[in-house]
């Protein structure tokens, strides 16, 4: 990992955003080097999701800018940002209701398809071929995360953890250059979390840069090349996982004083995911 060469895949500079009196992020700056996995951690309400929303311009920052491979994407519409190759998932899995698992995955590729609506209406051979190839790729991805047998299931009928995996591979179908994942492990059990770690490494192997928000410390320590710690909207530490793990400010932020690193795992939290 050498984050200082060339331009970073993502560079966040002085991002600021307040909601009423609450300063959700204040002066946040960090870089994500190309081809690495960066983990964004912090206690509940630290502003991690807000940061994702600012990067993808779902919420406008009050100040600061975002560079994606050197291009300034501050103020660009979310769809255009996605089209540039910056794709995200959401903390609460947002699969599309009314569609099957397979169809959900296929939506990911939408922007890269060549066939026009008119060609599809005429059932032209090349559109059908494209659809078939696409379905094959989607099924391969579903297979990789063990969801292949659910391809025709209504997506919202999947358990929460599976929905989050579905969202990850849907994002992968978009062939991103940079993938933002918001708590992908929430709702997964230990062995599934292991598989997710493997998946993340495989994603990195293919050259995709990953920025992941995660509460599961063993996962973070396992896969991350860089960890950025956020507390109350501000970056309080960043560096290699082992450095961050030893950083007293981080330990304090997470556990109050006098804590050991072992207790990190106790912080696994997906309680805020509670849904009716």
């Amino acid at each position: 990992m050498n984050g200082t060469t060339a331009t970073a895949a993502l560079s966040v500079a002085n991002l600021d955003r307040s909601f009423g009196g609450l300063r959700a992020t204040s002066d946040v700056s960090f870089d994500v080097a190309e081809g690495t996995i960066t983990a964004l951690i912090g206690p509940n309400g630290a502003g991690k999701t807000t940061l994702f929303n600012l990067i993808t311009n779902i919420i406008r920052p009050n100040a600061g800018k975002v560079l994606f491979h050197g291009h300034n994407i501050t103020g660009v519409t979310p769809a255009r940002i996605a089209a540039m190759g910056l794709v995200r998932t959401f903390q609460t899995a947002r699969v599309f209701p009314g569609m099957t698992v397979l169809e959900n995955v296929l939506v990911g590729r939408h922007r890269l398809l060549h066939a026009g609506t008119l060609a599809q209406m005429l059932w032209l051979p090349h559109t059908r071929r494209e659809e078939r190839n696409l379905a094959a790729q989607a099924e391969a991805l579903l297979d990789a995360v063990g969801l292949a047998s659910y391809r025709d299931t209504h997506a919202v009928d999947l358990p929460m953890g599976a929905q989050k995996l579905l969202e990850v591979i849907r994002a992968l179908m978009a062939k991103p250059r940079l993938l933002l994942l918001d708590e992908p492990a929430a709702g997964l059990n230990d062995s599934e979390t292991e598989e997710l770690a493997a998946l993340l490494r495989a994603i990195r192997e293919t050259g995709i840069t990953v920025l992941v928000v995660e509460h599961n410390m063993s996962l973070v320590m396992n896969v991350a090349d860089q960890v950025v710690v956020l507390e109350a909207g501000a970056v309080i530490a960043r560096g290699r996982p082992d450095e961050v793990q030893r950083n007293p400010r981080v330990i304090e932020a997470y556990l109050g004083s006098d804590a050991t690193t072992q207790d990190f795992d106790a912080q696994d939290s997906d309680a805020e995911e509670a849904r009716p």
Partner: protein
Amino acid sequence: MTDFIQLLVGGVLTGSIYALIALGFSLVYRVTGVINLAQGAFCILAALTCHSLQAELGWPVWAASLGGIAMTVAAGAITGALTFVPGLSRLSNANMLMMAAGLLTMAEGGILVLWGSQPYALPPFSGNRPVEIAGILVPTQGLWVVGTTLLTIACLWYLLARTRLGRALRACAENPAAARLMGIDVPRMTLLAFTLAAFIGAVAGVVIAPATSLQFDTGRLFTISGFVAVAIGGIASFPGSILGGLLLGLVNHFATAYVSSLFSNAIALGLLLVVLVWRPSGLVGAGVTRRQDVREEARVWKHVVRLKPPVAWITAGIALVGAALLPTVLPEGAILSSLVIAGILFIALLGLDILMGYAGQVSLGQAGFMAIGGYTAAWLAVEHDVAPLLGVLAGMALSLVCALVLSVVTLRLRGLYLALATLAFGLLVDSFAIGFSDITGGPSGLVGIPSFAVGGFEFDTPLSMYYLVLVLDAVLVLLFAGAIRASFGRALQAIRTDQMAAAALGVDVVKCKLTAFAISAMLASLSGSLYAFFFHFLSPEMVGTARSLELVAMLVIGGEGTLVGPLLGGILLTMMPAVFQPLASYKTFFSGALLVLCFLRLPEGLFGGAVAGLGRLFRSRQAPPALVGEGMAP
């Protein structure tokens, strides 16, 4: 000057009633997030009940008024408990809006059955002689109206601001989830709000009754005026609703006096569209901003309806052959004609399904495009001898232009505001159809429209039209099936439920919506043209708001998001009066009732139900593994 003041007074009187109806809208909206389109039905129901109690049972005015109000409130409470409240827990807001449209249709149909279609007039509460106040003549009923409005507003304010019940209601309005956590029984509060709205509507109906003529469809007019009023004023605010009502009343009166009564509606609707563009949430804002990144509660109640391709092809083939052979066993007559009509309406329904069933964009003004297509083609054929085919194309082109212009307004709108804008569009077209009588023949319609013809061949018998429509329907279904099963259809379905997640994957939401809207407009236009050629006649009410609502009912009953399903709904509602003559007067009631019933019991519609049945028949042994996923659930 006195003229001006006289107009002002008249405007305020009408405006008070609009304000009351608007208040009912706002109350239900703030507690549930749903526009209850049935609001106007409460007014007319109370007024007509009051009339019957007076005329038939000889009750005095005050007793009849109270009786009318009481019965309406009871009817409102029952309807609310049986339909509105259960619907809220499983239907999306767009579907709730359509269900409310179904309730309105149902009420309209019920009134048609009970009271017939003739107009009624009620005597004023205290005589016909107007009182003179500072040189201005004010009808005494006007004083009753203003007094009642003020009293109702005061009572409502007291209830909401000063009582425990009111606090609970307000808590529900501000944040239902939090209210639930605080131990408030949200469904009960919802029912209370609905009933309260029924009460306000009933009061408005009873006091305004002597000042207007009452008919089965007056309820729709009340609903529309109230809806327009809240949209102008700001639905999320009570003062806004009242302001909107008064403003609308004034605009109506001044426009009627200084421009023309034919266009006073058009002017009010123009005002509405301007407000929607300029301040989509109305003149008085809510002061509460919603979190953008949180998904709107996506209630999923429908199942996914998918036929396996071989099954779909075989079924389609059998259906097509059956349809082609049908006329050989059918006598040429009412039934064949109804089938032709159903087939023509299906073209509009296809477009509506793409727009509403797939892309999730509510449209209550689809008949507006039918009118554009119908009048354009018919007028060109009648007045200028233009070949029908060219006329059809001209109509489609004009509809496309109108759709794109309307998109400037609607693209920024979602959900109820979109529904409102399309409704306003339909009404606008309607008022032009009535107003421009040189071109359209006015209210009595355009006569002498020739048969459809292509290159010398005239489709002048129901049988030839039947085959024309059959081929057209089949080709259109094939075309759209191709696009729907590929990326186009997936993108539409994605934006239907989650525009933000779709955008985050790079789906061009604006382009998708525009395409769906343009397609639906052109198909409706085509349908409208054929409709005119088939009937050799076209009048505004054939392609008015009632038609728009009927299309929605057909779509939902047949099964939205299924492409061919709406045909079943279309056939059912068109054939019913043809097959069972005695049922003809019940048609409106049934189409509303079926719509509501489908939303509550069969959200996939008839087609979805049939497919589920077929699926059970063809159930393969390799069923997907059960979804247990121990530990996967959080």
